[in-house]
Protein backbone atom coordinates (compact mmCIF):
# COMPACT_ATOMS: atom_id res chain seq x y z
CA UNK A 1 0.00 0.00 0.00
CA UNK A 2 1.13 3.51 -0.54
CA UNK A 3 0.74 6.14 2.14
CA UNK A 4 1.70 9.17 0.09
CA UNK A 5 -0.15 10.70 -2.80
CA UNK A 6 1.87 11.60 -5.90
CA UNK A 7 1.63 15.28 -4.97
CA UNK A 8 3.16 14.73 -1.52
CA UNK A 9 5.83 12.52 -3.02
CA UNK A 10 6.74 15.22 -5.53
CA UNK A 11 6.89 17.80 -2.72
CA UNK A 12 9.18 15.59 -0.65
CA UNK A 13 11.43 15.04 -3.66
CA UNK A 14 11.50 18.80 -4.18
CA UNK A 15 12.55 19.26 -0.54
CA UNK A 16 15.33 16.69 -1.00
CA UNK A 17 16.54 18.44 -4.17
CA UNK A 18 16.62 21.79 -2.34
CA UNK A 19 18.64 20.13 0.44
CA UNK A 20 21.18 18.94 -2.14
CA UNK A 21 21.51 22.41 -3.63
CA UNK A 22 21.97 23.91 -0.15
CA UNK A 23 24.56 21.22 0.60
CA UNK A 24 26.66 22.15 -2.42
CA UNK A 25 26.22 25.82 -1.59
CA UNK A 26 27.27 25.26 2.01
CA UNK A 27 30.40 23.40 0.92
CA UNK A 28 31.60 26.64 -0.67
CA UNK A 29 32.86 28.10 2.59
CA UNK A 30 34.74 26.53 5.51
CA UNK A 31 32.28 28.11 7.93
CA UNK A 32 29.16 26.47 6.53
CA UNK A 33 30.67 23.36 4.96
CA UNK A 34 29.97 20.86 7.69
CA UNK A 35 26.42 22.06 8.14
CA UNK A 36 25.96 21.88 4.36
CA UNK A 37 27.03 18.28 4.30
CA UNK A 38 24.55 17.41 7.05
CA UNK A 39 21.78 19.16 5.13
CA UNK A 40 22.66 16.98 2.14
CA UNK A 41 22.49 13.82 4.25
CA UNK A 42 19.12 14.96 5.61
CA UNK A 43 17.88 15.40 2.03
CA UNK A 44 18.94 11.86 1.24
CA UNK A 45 17.01 10.54 4.25
CA UNK A 46 13.87 12.44 3.13
CA UNK A 47 14.18 10.94 -0.34
CA UNK A 48 14.63 7.36 0.86
CA UNK A 49 11.70 7.64 3.30
CA UNK A 50 9.57 9.14 0.51
CA UNK A 51 10.28 6.28 -1.86
CA UNK A 52 9.32 3.68 0.77
CA UNK A 53 6.04 5.47 1.45
CA UNK A 54 5.05 6.29 -2.10
CA UNK A 55 5.83 3.28 -4.30
CA UNK A 56 4.19 -0.13 -4.15
CA UNK A 57 7.24 -2.20 -3.14
CA UNK A 58 7.69 -5.95 -2.83
CA UNK A 59 10.72 -7.59 -1.18
CA UNK A 60 10.86 -4.87 1.47
CA UNK A 61 12.74 -7.00 4.05
CA UNK A 62 15.37 -7.82 1.43
CA UNK A 63 15.74 -4.17 0.49
CA UNK A 64 16.04 -3.02 4.09
CA UNK A 65 18.58 -5.79 4.72
CA UNK A 66 20.65 -4.68 1.72
CA UNK A 67 20.61 -1.08 2.91
CA UNK A 68 21.79 -2.29 6.32
CA UNK A 69 24.60 -4.28 4.71
CA UNK A 70 25.71 -1.33 2.57
CA UNK A 71 25.70 1.03 5.55
CA UNK A 72 27.44 -1.47 7.81
CA UNK A 73 30.25 -1.84 5.32
CA UNK A 74 30.66 1.77 4.22
CA UNK A 75 30.20 3.77 7.42
CA UNK A 76 32.97 2.17 9.52
CA UNK A 77 35.37 2.24 6.58
CA UNK A 78 34.65 5.94 6.05
CA UNK A 79 34.98 6.60 9.78
CA UNK A 80 38.27 4.79 10.22
CA UNK A 81 40.12 5.42 6.98
CA UNK A 82 43.41 7.23 7.38
CA UNK A 83 43.30 10.81 6.21
CA UNK A 84 46.04 10.00 3.72
CA UNK A 85 43.87 7.36 2.07
CA UNK A 86 40.86 9.62 1.71
CA UNK A 87 41.27 10.14 -2.06
CA UNK A 88 41.11 6.48 -2.99
CA UNK A 89 38.10 5.98 -0.75
CA UNK A 90 36.25 8.78 -2.54
CA UNK A 91 37.20 7.10 -5.84
CA UNK A 92 35.83 3.80 -4.56
CA UNK A 93 32.50 5.28 -3.42
CA UNK A 94 32.18 7.07 -6.74
CA UNK A 95 32.79 3.82 -8.60
CA UNK A 96 30.14 1.83 -6.73
CA UNK A 97 27.63 4.64 -7.36
CA UNK A 98 28.32 4.40 -11.09
CA UNK A 99 28.02 0.62 -10.90
CA UNK A 100 24.65 0.91 -9.14
CA UNK A 101 23.34 3.28 -11.84
CA UNK A 102 24.43 0.86 -14.58
CA UNK A 103 22.71 -2.10 -12.85
CA UNK A 104 19.48 -0.10 -12.39
CA UNK A 105 19.51 0.77 -16.10
CA UNK A 106 20.15 -2.86 -17.06
CA UNK A 107 17.10 -3.99 -15.10
CA UNK A 108 14.90 -1.15 -16.31
CA UNK A 109 15.53 -2.06 -19.96
CA UNK A 110 12.84 -4.74 -19.72
CA UNK A 111 10.25 -2.06 -18.82
CA UNK A 112 11.20 0.53 -21.43
CA UNK A 113 9.41 0.17 -24.75
CA UNK A 114 9.99 3.70 -25.93
CA UNK A 115 13.03 4.37 -28.18
CA UNK A 116 14.05 7.53 -26.32
CA UNK A 117 13.81 5.72 -23.02
CA UNK A 118 16.18 3.09 -24.35
CA UNK A 119 18.61 5.82 -25.41
CA UNK A 120 18.70 6.93 -21.77
CA UNK A 121 19.17 3.30 -20.67
CA UNK A 122 22.10 2.90 -23.06
CA UNK A 123 23.67 6.16 -21.85
CA UNK A 124 23.36 5.14 -18.19
CA UNK A 125 24.76 1.67 -18.85
CA UNK A 126 27.78 2.95 -20.71
CA UNK A 127 28.64 5.94 -18.52
CA UNK A 128 27.96 4.05 -15.28
CA UNK A 129 30.24 1.20 -16.38
CA UNK A 130 32.98 3.62 -17.48
CA UNK A 131 32.78 5.35 -14.11
CA UNK A 132 32.89 2.04 -12.22
CA UNK A 133 35.91 0.62 -14.05
CA UNK A 134 37.73 3.96 -14.23
CA UNK A 135 37.29 4.50 -10.50
CA UNK A 136 38.55 0.98 -9.79
CA UNK A 137 41.75 1.76 -11.71
CA UNK A 138 42.22 5.14 -9.98
CA UNK A 139 41.74 3.33 -6.66
CA UNK A 140 44.44 0.80 -7.62
CA UNK A 141 46.78 3.61 -8.65
CA UNK A 142 46.31 5.65 -5.48
CA UNK A 143 46.54 2.59 -3.25
CA UNK A 144 49.70 1.75 -5.21
CA UNK A 145 48.37 -1.67 -6.07
CA UNK A 146 49.68 -0.90 -9.54
CA UNK A 147 52.18 1.48 -11.07
CA UNK A 148 51.34 5.17 -10.70
CA UNK A 149 53.04 5.98 -13.98
CA UNK A 150 51.00 6.27 -17.17
CA UNK A 151 50.41 2.84 -18.71
CA UNK A 152 50.57 3.05 -22.47
CA UNK A 153 51.14 0.45 -25.14
CA UNK A 154 51.53 0.84 -28.87
CA UNK A 155 48.18 0.82 -30.59
CA UNK A 156 46.27 2.02 -27.52
CA UNK A 157 44.48 4.74 -29.52
CA UNK A 158 43.47 2.15 -32.13
CA UNK A 159 42.17 -0.28 -29.49
CA UNK A 160 40.30 2.57 -27.76
CA UNK A 161 38.68 3.68 -31.04
CA UNK A 162 37.63 0.11 -31.87
CA UNK A 163 36.13 -0.47 -28.42
CA UNK A 164 34.27 2.86 -28.58
CA UNK A 165 32.93 2.00 -32.05
CA UNK A 166 31.82 -1.40 -30.80
CA UNK A 167 30.13 0.26 -27.80
CA UNK A 168 28.26 2.72 -30.02
CA UNK A 169 27.22 -0.11 -32.36
CA UNK A 170 26.00 -2.24 -29.46
CA UNK A 171 24.21 0.76 -27.98
CA UNK A 172 22.31 1.33 -31.24
CA UNK A 173 21.49 -2.38 -31.24
CA UNK A 174 20.06 -2.14 -27.72
CA UNK A 175 17.93 0.88 -28.66
CA UNK A 176 16.34 -0.93 -31.59
CA UNK A 177 16.08 -4.48 -30.20
CA UNK A 178 15.81 -3.97 -26.43
CA UNK A 179 17.89 -7.13 -26.09
CA UNK A 180 19.14 -7.93 -22.58
CA UNK A 181 22.12 -9.88 -23.93
CA UNK A 182 23.29 -6.90 -25.99
CA UNK A 183 22.85 -4.67 -22.92
CA UNK A 184 25.14 -6.93 -20.89
CA UNK A 185 27.64 -6.76 -23.76
CA UNK A 186 27.43 -2.96 -23.66
CA UNK A 187 28.08 -3.04 -19.93
CA UNK A 188 31.25 -5.08 -20.48
CA UNK A 189 32.41 -2.76 -23.28
CA UNK A 190 31.83 0.19 -20.92
CA UNK A 191 34.10 -1.46 -18.35
CA UNK A 192 36.84 -1.84 -20.98
CA UNK A 193 36.46 1.83 -22.00
CA UNK A 194 36.78 2.88 -18.35
CA UNK A 195 40.00 0.91 -17.90
CA UNK A 196 41.53 2.18 -21.15
CA UNK A 197 40.53 5.76 -20.31
CA UNK A 198 42.33 5.86 -16.97
CA UNK A 199 45.37 3.62 -17.58
CA UNK A 200 47.32 6.27 -19.53
CA UNK A 201 46.75 8.95 -16.88
CA UNK A 202 49.84 9.81 -14.85
CA UNK A 203 49.71 9.51 -11.09
CA UNK A 204 49.77 13.23 -10.39
CA UNK A 205 46.65 13.76 -12.49
CA UNK A 206 44.59 11.03 -10.88
CA UNK A 207 42.65 13.38 -8.53
CA UNK A 208 41.38 15.34 -11.53
CA UNK A 209 40.23 12.11 -13.12
CA UNK A 210 38.35 11.16 -9.93
CA UNK A 211 36.53 14.46 -10.15
CA UNK A 212 35.74 13.85 -13.82
CA UNK A 213 34.42 10.34 -13.14
CA UNK A 214 32.37 11.84 -10.31
CA UNK A 215 30.72 14.12 -12.86
CA UNK A 216 30.20 11.09 -15.15
CA UNK A 217 28.40 9.19 -12.39
CA UNK A 218 26.23 12.26 -11.85
CA UNK A 219 25.22 12.21 -15.51
CA UNK A 220 24.52 8.47 -15.36
CA UNK A 221 22.25 9.04 -12.34
CA UNK A 222 20.47 11.87 -14.18
CA UNK A 223 19.85 9.60 -17.17
CA UNK A 224 18.54 6.85 -14.90
CA UNK A 225 16.14 9.48 -13.54
CA UNK A 226 14.78 9.84 -17.08
CA UNK A 227 14.48 6.06 -17.39
CA UNK A 228 12.56 5.69 -14.13
CA UNK A 229 10.62 8.93 -14.60
CA UNK A 230 12.00 10.10 -11.25
CA UNK A 231 12.55 13.85 -11.08
CA UNK A 232 14.76 13.72 -7.97
CA UNK A 233 17.31 11.45 -9.63
CA UNK A 234 17.23 13.71 -12.67
CA UNK A 235 17.84 16.88 -10.66
CA UNK A 236 20.43 15.44 -8.24
CA UNK A 237 22.35 13.72 -11.03
CA UNK A 238 22.36 16.83 -13.21
CA UNK A 239 23.52 18.96 -10.26
CA UNK A 240 26.45 16.65 -9.64
CA UNK A 241 27.23 16.38 -13.34
CA UNK A 242 27.31 20.16 -13.78
CA UNK A 243 29.12 21.04 -10.56
CA UNK A 244 31.53 18.15 -11.07
CA UNK A 245 32.43 19.47 -14.51
CA UNK A 246 33.17 22.95 -13.15
CA UNK A 247 35.12 21.48 -10.25
CA UNK A 248 37.19 19.31 -12.59
CA UNK A 249 38.09 22.37 -14.64
CA UNK A 250 38.99 24.37 -11.51
CA UNK A 251 41.23 21.56 -10.26
CA UNK A 252 42.91 21.21 -13.63
CA UNK A 253 43.46 24.97 -13.73
CA UNK A 254 45.10 24.86 -10.28
CA UNK A 255 47.59 22.39 -11.72
CA UNK A 256 48.03 24.27 -14.98
CA UNK A 257 46.56 21.42 -17.01
CA UNK A 258 43.74 20.96 -19.43
CA UNK A 259 41.32 18.10 -18.94
CA UNK A 260 41.75 16.93 -22.53
CA UNK A 261 45.53 17.08 -22.07
CA UNK A 262 45.32 14.81 -19.05
CA UNK A 263 43.13 12.23 -20.74
CA UNK A 264 44.84 12.23 -24.09
CA UNK A 265 48.33 13.53 -23.22
CA UNK A 266 49.81 10.07 -22.84
CA UNK A 267 48.28 8.98 -26.14
CA UNK A 268 50.41 11.59 -27.82
CA UNK A 269 53.48 10.55 -25.90
CA UNK A 270 53.56 13.78 -23.90
CA UNK A 271 54.63 12.08 -20.71
CA UNK A 272 57.69 10.31 -22.05
CA UNK A 273 59.97 13.17 -21.04
CA UNK A 274 59.70 12.03 -17.44
CA UNK A 275 62.68 9.73 -17.26
CA UNK A 276 63.00 7.49 -14.24
CA UNK A 277 66.76 7.44 -14.49
CA UNK A 278 68.34 8.72 -11.30
CA UNK A 279 71.37 10.76 -12.23
CA UNK A 280 74.74 10.40 -10.57
CA UNK A 281 75.25 14.08 -9.83
CA UNK A 282 76.55 14.86 -6.34
CA UNK A 283 74.15 16.17 -3.67
CA UNK A 284 74.86 17.69 -0.29
CA UNK A 285 73.40 15.58 2.46
CA UNK A 286 73.48 16.61 6.07
CA UNK A 287 72.65 15.61 9.64
CA UNK A 288 69.60 16.46 11.73
CA UNK A 289 71.76 18.63 14.01
CA UNK A 290 72.96 20.78 11.10
CA UNK A 291 69.39 21.22 9.90
CA UNK A 292 68.33 22.18 13.45
CA UNK A 293 71.01 24.87 13.56
CA UNK A 294 69.90 26.21 10.18
CA UNK A 295 66.29 26.37 11.35
CA UNK A 296 66.86 27.49 14.92
CA UNK A 297 68.92 30.53 14.01
CA UNK A 298 66.78 31.61 11.06
CA UNK A 299 64.39 34.52 11.24
CA UNK A 300 61.88 33.20 8.83
CA UNK A 301 61.20 29.57 7.90
CA UNK A 302 58.66 28.39 5.39
CA UNK A 303 57.69 24.73 5.63
CA UNK A 304 56.52 23.09 2.41
CA UNK A 305 54.65 19.89 3.30
CA UNK A 306 53.97 17.20 0.70
CA UNK A 307 52.59 13.72 0.40
CA UNK A 308 55.68 12.18 2.02
CA UNK A 309 54.77 13.98 5.24
CA UNK A 310 51.26 12.60 5.11
CA UNK A 311 52.38 9.05 4.37
CA UNK A 312 54.81 9.10 7.30
CA UNK A 313 51.98 10.47 9.52
CA UNK A 314 54.41 13.26 10.34
CA UNK A 315 51.93 16.15 10.37
CA UNK A 316 51.80 16.22 14.17
CA UNK A 317 55.60 16.29 14.45
CA UNK A 318 55.74 19.04 11.83
CA UNK A 319 53.25 21.06 13.88
CA UNK A 320 55.38 20.54 17.02
CA UNK A 321 58.53 21.60 15.18
CA UNK A 322 56.77 24.77 13.98
CA UNK A 323 55.70 25.50 17.55
CA UNK A 324 59.21 24.90 18.94
CA UNK A 325 60.64 27.26 16.34
CA UNK A 326 57.98 29.88 17.07
CA UNK A 327 58.96 29.72 20.74
CA UNK A 328 62.53 30.55 19.69
CA UNK A 329 61.20 33.61 17.89
CA UNK A 330 61.40 32.16 14.40
CA UNK A 331 58.61 33.20 12.08
CA UNK A 332 57.14 29.97 10.67
CA UNK A 333 54.57 29.51 7.92
CA UNK A 334 53.31 26.53 5.98
CA UNK A 335 53.17 26.94 2.21
CA UNK A 336 50.36 24.84 0.83
CA UNK A 337 50.42 23.99 -2.84
CA UNK A 338 46.87 23.57 -4.18
CA UNK A 339 47.54 19.93 -5.03
CA UNK A 340 49.94 19.04 -2.22
CA UNK A 341 49.12 15.60 -0.93
CA UNK A 342 47.06 13.64 -3.37
CA UNK A 343 44.08 15.90 -3.86
CA UNK A 344 43.43 19.63 -3.92
CA UNK A 345 43.01 20.78 -0.33
CA UNK A 346 44.22 17.45 1.05
CA UNK A 347 47.18 18.99 2.89
CA UNK A 348 45.01 21.59 4.61
CA UNK A 349 42.89 18.77 6.00
CA UNK A 350 45.94 16.89 7.27
CA UNK A 351 47.56 19.90 8.92
CA UNK A 352 44.29 21.06 10.43
CA UNK A 353 44.04 17.58 11.95
CA UNK A 354 47.45 18.23 13.56
CA UNK A 355 46.17 21.50 15.06
CA UNK A 356 48.27 23.81 12.92
CA UNK A 357 46.61 27.23 13.23
CA UNK A 358 44.60 28.19 10.17
CA UNK A 359 46.50 31.50 9.86
CA UNK A 360 49.83 29.71 9.40
CA UNK A 361 48.54 27.84 6.35
CA UNK A 362 49.34 30.05 3.38
CA UNK A 363 48.03 29.40 -0.09
CA UNK A 364 50.45 29.41 -2.98
CA UNK A 365 49.46 32.77 -4.45
CA UNK A 366 49.84 34.38 -1.04
CA UNK A 367 53.23 32.93 -0.08
CA UNK A 368 55.14 32.71 -3.36
CA UNK A 369 56.47 36.27 -3.20
CA UNK A 370 57.60 35.69 0.42
CA UNK A 371 60.15 32.96 -0.31
CA UNK A 372 62.61 35.74 -1.21
CA UNK A 373 62.54 36.91 2.41
CA UNK A 374 62.79 33.42 3.89
CA UNK A 375 66.05 32.16 5.36
CA UNK A 376 65.12 28.52 5.03
CA UNK A 377 62.54 26.67 2.97
CA UNK A 378 62.01 23.28 4.60
CA UNK A 379 60.55 20.86 2.04
CA UNK A 380 59.10 17.85 3.83
CA UNK A 381 58.22 14.93 1.59
CA UNK A 382 57.27 17.12 -1.36
CA UNK A 383 58.88 17.05 -4.74
CA UNK A 384 56.77 17.72 -7.82
CA UNK A 385 55.17 20.86 -6.36
CA UNK A 386 58.58 22.54 -5.98
CA UNK A 387 60.17 21.14 -9.14
CA UNK A 388 61.48 23.96 -11.37
CA UNK A 389 61.07 21.61 -14.35
CA UNK A 390 57.46 22.76 -14.32
CA UNK A 391 58.69 26.16 -15.45
CA UNK A 392 61.79 25.29 -17.48
CA UNK A 393 61.38 21.91 -19.16
CA UNK A 394 58.78 21.95 -21.90
CA UNK A 395 57.54 18.40 -22.47
CA UNK A 396 57.96 17.39 -18.85
CA UNK A 397 54.75 15.83 -17.49
CA UNK A 398 54.37 18.64 -15.00
CA UNK A 399 55.29 21.45 -17.42
CA UNK A 400 53.00 24.42 -16.89
CA UNK A 401 51.95 23.45 -13.37
CA UNK A 402 52.37 26.42 -11.02
CA UNK A 403 54.99 25.61 -8.36
CA UNK A 404 56.08 26.98 -5.01
CA UNK A 405 59.17 29.15 -5.58
CA UNK A 406 61.34 27.57 -2.89
CA UNK A 407 64.45 28.23 -5.00
CA UNK A 408 64.12 31.90 -3.98
CA UNK A 409 64.83 31.11 -0.33
CA UNK A 410 68.39 31.56 0.93
CA UNK A 411 68.65 27.92 1.96
CA UNK A 412 66.57 24.96 0.88
CA UNK A 413 66.36 21.82 3.01
CA UNK A 414 64.76 18.68 1.63
CA UNK A 415 63.64 15.93 3.98
CA UNK A 416 63.35 12.93 1.68
CA UNK A 417 63.23 9.18 1.92
CA UNK A 418 65.58 8.67 -0.99
CA UNK A 419 66.59 10.20 -4.29
CA UNK A 420 63.60 8.45 -5.86
CA UNK A 421 61.66 10.89 -8.03
CA UNK A 422 58.22 12.08 -6.94
CA UNK A 423 54.76 10.91 -7.88
CA UNK A 424 55.01 12.28 -11.40
CA UNK A 425 58.21 10.30 -11.87
CA UNK A 426 60.60 13.13 -12.75
CA UNK A 427 63.84 14.28 -11.24
CA UNK A 428 64.10 17.54 -9.38
CA UNK A 429 67.07 19.67 -10.41
CA UNK A 430 66.66 21.82 -7.32
CA UNK A 431 68.21 19.06 -5.24
CA UNK A 432 71.56 19.58 -7.00
CA UNK A 433 71.68 23.34 -6.46
CA UNK A 434 74.40 24.75 -4.15
CA UNK A 435 71.93 26.24 -1.63
CA UNK A 436 70.21 22.89 -1.16
CA UNK A 437 70.79 20.47 1.72
CA UNK A 438 69.26 17.02 1.93
CA UNK A 439 68.38 14.99 4.99
CA UNK A 440 67.50 11.42 4.07
CA UNK A 441 65.02 9.33 6.00
CA UNK A 442 61.35 8.84 6.74
CA UNK A 443 59.72 12.25 7.11
CA UNK A 444 58.48 11.62 10.63
CA UNK A 445 61.80 10.18 11.88
CA UNK A 446 63.75 13.08 10.39
CA UNK A 447 61.34 15.63 11.84
CA UNK A 448 61.54 14.00 15.27
CA UNK A 449 65.36 14.13 15.17
CA UNK A 450 65.34 17.75 13.99
CA UNK A 451 62.78 18.65 16.66
CA UNK A 452 64.95 17.07 19.35
CA UNK A 453 68.01 18.91 18.09
CA UNK A 454 66.14 22.25 17.95
CA UNK A 455 65.00 21.81 21.56
CA UNK A 456 68.61 21.11 22.53
CA UNK A 457 69.97 24.29 20.93
Amino acid at each position, binding site marked *: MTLLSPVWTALLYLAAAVCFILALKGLNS*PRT*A*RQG*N*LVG*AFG*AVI*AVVAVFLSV*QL*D*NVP*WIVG*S*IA*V*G*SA*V*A*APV*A*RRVKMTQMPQL*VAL*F*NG*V*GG*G*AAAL*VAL*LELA*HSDDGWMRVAVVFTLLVGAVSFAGSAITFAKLQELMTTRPVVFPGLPVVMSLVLLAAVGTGVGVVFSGSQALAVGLLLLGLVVGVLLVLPVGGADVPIVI*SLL*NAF*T*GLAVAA*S*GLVLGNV*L*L*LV*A*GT*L*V*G*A*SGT*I*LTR*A*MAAAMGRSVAGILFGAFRGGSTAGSTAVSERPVRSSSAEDVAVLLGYAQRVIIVPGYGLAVAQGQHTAAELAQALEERGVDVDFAIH*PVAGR*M*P*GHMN*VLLAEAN*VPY*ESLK*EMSEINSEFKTADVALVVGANDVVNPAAKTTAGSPIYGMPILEVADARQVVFLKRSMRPGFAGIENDLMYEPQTTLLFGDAKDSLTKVLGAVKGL
Partner: protein
Amino acid sequence: MDGVSLLTITVLAVFVGFEVVSKVSSTLHTPLMSGANAIHGIILVGAIIVAGQAHEPLVLAVALLAVVLATANLVGGFVVTDRMLEMFRGRKPGGGKPAPGPDKQKAGKAAEKEKTR
Protein backbone atom coordinates in the same frame (compact mmCIF):
# COMPACT_ATOMS: atom_id res chain seq x y z
CA MET B 1 5.91 14.03 -17.03
CA ASP B 2 6.26 15.19 -20.61
CA GLY B 3 9.59 15.59 -22.40
CA VAL B 4 9.58 19.39 -22.46
CA SER B 5 9.08 19.68 -18.68
CA LEU B 6 11.90 17.21 -18.08
CA LEU B 7 14.14 19.16 -20.44
CA THR B 8 13.29 22.41 -18.61
CA ILE B 9 14.14 20.88 -15.25
CA THR B 10 17.41 19.46 -16.59
CA VAL B 11 18.57 22.74 -18.12
CA LEU B 12 17.75 24.69 -14.96
CA ALA B 13 19.56 22.10 -12.82
CA VAL B 14 22.64 22.44 -15.05
CA PHE B 15 22.74 26.18 -14.43
CA VAL B 16 22.23 25.77 -10.69
CA GLY B 17 25.02 23.19 -10.65
CA PHE B 18 27.37 25.56 -12.48
CA GLU B 19 26.42 28.45 -10.24
CA VAL B 20 26.81 26.86 -6.80
CA VAL B 21 30.44 25.85 -7.32
CA SER B 22 31.71 28.69 -9.44
CA LYS B 23 33.97 30.31 -6.83
CA VAL B 24 35.35 27.77 -4.38
CA SER B 25 38.83 28.11 -2.88
CA SER B 26 41.10 25.18 -3.62
CA THR B 27 41.10 24.36 0.09
CA LEU B 28 37.56 23.08 -0.24
CA HIS B 29 37.88 21.29 -3.58
CA THR B 30 38.32 17.89 -1.96
CA PRO B 31 35.36 18.13 0.46
CA LEU B 32 33.19 19.56 -2.32
CA MET B 33 34.04 16.71 -4.65
CA SER B 34 33.39 14.26 -1.86
CA GLY B 35 30.05 15.91 -1.03
CA ALA B 36 28.93 15.86 -4.66
CA ASN B 37 30.02 12.23 -4.74
CA ALA B 38 27.73 11.47 -1.83
CA ILE B 39 24.79 13.20 -3.51
CA HIS B 40 24.85 10.94 -6.56
CA GLY B 41 24.47 8.04 -4.15
CA ILE B 42 20.79 9.01 -4.31
CA ILE B 43 20.66 6.46 -7.13
CA LEU B 44 19.66 4.37 -4.11
CA VAL B 45 16.11 5.62 -4.70
CA GLY B 46 16.24 4.12 -8.19
CA ALA B 47 17.73 0.88 -6.92
CA ILE B 48 14.98 0.56 -4.28
CA ILE B 49 12.26 1.09 -6.90
CA VAL B 50 13.75 -1.55 -9.19
CA ALA B 51 14.26 -4.03 -6.35
CA GLY B 52 10.68 -3.46 -5.18
CA GLN B 53 9.33 -4.47 -8.58
CA ALA B 54 11.55 -7.51 -9.07
CA HIS B 55 9.84 -10.89 -9.32
CA GLU B 56 12.53 -13.22 -10.65
CA PRO B 57 15.34 -14.27 -8.27
CA LEU B 58 18.10 -13.19 -10.68
CA VAL B 59 16.58 -9.74 -11.20
CA LEU B 60 16.10 -9.36 -7.46
CA ALA B 61 19.70 -10.39 -6.80
CA VAL B 62 21.08 -7.83 -9.26
CA ALA B 63 18.75 -5.13 -7.91
CA LEU B 64 19.79 -5.86 -4.32
CA LEU B 65 23.44 -5.65 -5.38
CA ALA B 66 22.61 -2.20 -6.78
CA VAL B 67 20.97 -1.28 -3.45
CA VAL B 68 24.09 -2.31 -1.51
CA LEU B 69 26.42 -0.40 -3.86
CA ALA B 70 24.24 2.72 -3.86
CA THR B 71 23.96 2.67 -0.06
CA ALA B 72 27.74 2.40 0.23
CA ASN B 73 28.07 5.44 -2.05
CA LEU B 74 25.45 7.47 -0.19
CA VAL B 75 26.30 6.64 3.43
CA GLY B 76 30.06 6.35 2.96
CA GLY B 77 30.13 9.55 0.93
CA PHE B 78 28.42 11.68 3.55
CA VAL B 79 30.40 10.16 6.43
CA VAL B 80 33.77 10.63 4.74
CA THR B 81 32.90 14.24 3.83
CA ASP B 82 31.88 14.91 7.40
CA ARG B 83 35.19 13.53 8.63
CA MET B 84 37.13 15.77 6.27
CA LEU B 85 35.16 18.80 7.42
CA GLU B 86 35.55 17.92 11.07
CA MET B 87 39.16 19.02 10.59
CA PHE B 88 38.12 22.55 9.70
CA ARG B 89 36.07 23.03 12.82
CA GLY B 90 36.86 26.09 14.91
CA ARG B 91 39.66 27.36 12.71
CA LYS B 92 38.14 30.35 11.01
CA PRO B 93 40.51 33.09 9.91
CA GLY B 94 40.77 35.70 12.66
CA GLY B 95 39.19 33.35 15.15
CA GLY B 96 42.29 33.38 17.32
CA LYS B 97 44.93 30.69 17.49
CA PRO B 98 43.24 27.48 18.57
CA ALA B 99 46.47 25.46 18.68
CA PRO B 100 47.34 25.97 22.33
CA GLY B 101 43.72 25.28 23.26
CA PRO B 102 43.88 21.52 23.83
CA ASP B 103 47.16 21.83 25.76
CA LYS B 104 45.74 24.48 28.04
CA GLN B 105 42.61 22.40 28.53
CA LYS B 106 44.73 19.39 29.37
CA ALA B 107 46.78 21.48 31.75
CA GLY B 108 43.57 22.79 33.30
CA LYS B 109 42.16 19.29 33.73
CA ALA B 110 45.43 18.11 35.20
CA ALA B 111 45.32 21.00 37.66
CA GLU B 112 41.75 20.08 38.58
CA LYS B 113 42.82 16.51 39.21
CA GLU B 114 45.57 17.80 41.46
CA LYS B 115 43.02 19.81 43.40
CA THR B 116 40.56 16.93 43.80
CA ARG B 117 43.35 14.77 45.10
